[in-house]
């Protein structure tokens, strides 16, 4: 028994060390003279996430057409977990929607092939990693008058202003028509991509300020889920953060509401300013694993 006790004592002493110091979160300072070095901590979103799908497709992190992001990458379920992980880890590299990344001062956004993901560079198409935010409805059934009114709002000057405010590129940058409230009432159900979810919530809030008798349910269950829900009549509008596939276009009509860039992000202490698309690809494939091999 005493032996057991002493063994436990060692474990406890260890854990005390660990738990006792748990409060301190002092920053590691990277050595300024030599710049960032050591193991790259690759952080990715979960499989099925629209952001991951688009990132993998555009940066071509694939082998035989399959998503081949290194299995060693930390999987951050959700945008916030991604941001926090990158913000806290000096060795980290991750990716997130520019709408979120550019507004979060805890991380640094890298240029890709020398181009920063600014609104301008996404509009003129020089920033490589960008994707459309799409909404879809069932072609045969069309939109209900109420859903149509909401879509009209999205493409109006007010709606597109919300898009720009949130850091996305409006689909109609200038000269969108003014929206006038229609006085309709009822419920609109929107389901799909969790990336579009945040923007859609802002759009619905703005719409409801003008149409207080309308309820809009925005679910962010994922692109695939949203499309299924629309097909099964459980949603009026599906949201997608990637282009619809051919099989989906057979019954869905797509409308692009905004363009979103995907920013490659690192810890603020990281002294690298930019990467090439190829470097990003190699990092996420796991073929480059040390920061010093980047420079």
């Amino acid at each position: 028994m005493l032996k057991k006790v002493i063994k436990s004592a060692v474990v406890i002493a260890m854990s005390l060390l660990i738990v006792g110091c748990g409060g301190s979160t002092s920053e590691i300072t990277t050595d300024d003279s030599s710049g960032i070095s050591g193991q790259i901590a690759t952080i990715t979103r979960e499989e099925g996430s629209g952001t991951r799908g688009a990132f993998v497709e555009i940066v071509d992190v694939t082998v035989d057409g399959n998503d081949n992001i290194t299995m060693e990458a930390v999987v951050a379920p959700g945008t916030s977990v991604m941001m926090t992980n990158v913000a806290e880890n000096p060795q980290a590299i991750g990716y997130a929607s520019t709408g979120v990344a550019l507004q979060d001062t805890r991380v640094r956004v890298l240029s890709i092939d020398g181009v920063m993901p600014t609104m301008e560079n996404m509009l003129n198409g020089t920033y490589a990693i960008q994707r459309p935010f799409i909404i879809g409805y069932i072609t045969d059934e069309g939109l209900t008058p109420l859903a149509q009114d909401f879509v009209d709002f999205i493409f109006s000057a007010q709606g597109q202003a919300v898009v720009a405010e949130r850091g996305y590129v409006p689909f109609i940058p200038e000269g969108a028509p003014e929206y006038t409230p229609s006085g309709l009432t009822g419920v609109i159900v929107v389901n799909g991509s969790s990336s579009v979810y945040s923007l859609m919530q802002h759009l619905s809030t703005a719409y409801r300020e003008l149409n207080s008798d309308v309820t809009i349910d925005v679910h962010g269950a994922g692109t695939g889920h949203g499309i299924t829900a629309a097909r099964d009549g459980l949603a009026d509008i599906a949201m997608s953060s990637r282009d619809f596939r051919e099989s989906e276009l057979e019954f869905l009509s797509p409308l692009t509401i905004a363009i979103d860039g995907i920013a490659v992000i690192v810890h603020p202490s990281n002294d690298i300013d930019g990467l090439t698309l190829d470097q990003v690809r190699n990092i996420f494939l796991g073929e480059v694993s040390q920061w010093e091999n980047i420079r």
Partner: protein
Amino acid sequence: MGKHSLVFYKELAAKILFILSASAAIIAVGLICVFLFMQGLPAMWDMGVIRFLTGTDWRPTWNPPAFGILPMIVGSIYVTVGAILFGVPIGIFAAVFMAKFCPAPIYKILKPAINLLAGIPSVVYGYFGMVVLVPFVRQTFGGSGNSILTASILLGMMILPTIITISESAIRAIPGEIYEGAIALGASHENASYRVVLPAAKSGVMASVILGIGRAVGETMAVRMVAGNQAVLRMPHEFLMGTRTLTANVVIELGYAYGNHRAALVATGVVLFIFVMIINALFSLLKKKEGI
């Protein structure tokens, strides 16, 4: 006669109502088994049970997809064992403290505090783990910080109240004469508490450990925020690397999954369910043996 039979029927109706209510738990377990197995087992069968359980590749979106959950099974085992290493010694010592060492005024504060520890929602623990424990482990031990070790520490914290509360009541249930006898024979307070009373409460303490294991295996929301979630088969010495548990696998991907992928996730749930059943069976066995 008429009045008598009214009372009789009332009694009978009540008894039937009570029996039906008591059957609710049986019906619930039956439904859970049937519906989980109905959705999970055929999928498992199609994929090949052995291939599903021992496959090391989890590539649900690949063409063709690969559904192997061995990394998650092993991951769940690692973090649970880790949680036990951290939580059990501290929990048992703390339980002895509560039962045998604690001055009354401190007990009045500590008892509700430990109950509170049990009541903190796991989302809150997860959030705390992500912003405090993950950076701490990274800075102290290296690696990305999202690791088996981090998840173990966090789970160890989360099972502490379970272990303390149940062990404490097991220790308290030991008759005072046993302790007093030891003291009368010249044992010190520590000696009497740890070498006489604690061994006497062994089965209750074991029960607390098993319940703690159950909580650790089933924990979802907190683990997914600190464990790294890599579906990679780890070796025990890679405790500074990340892992994915069975629970995290389900909660992370269920929102996106349809078709075979969803079935594979339900099958993951079935495996988790069976895991918990085994732990429960151990618990009942222990209870029977020790007659708690």
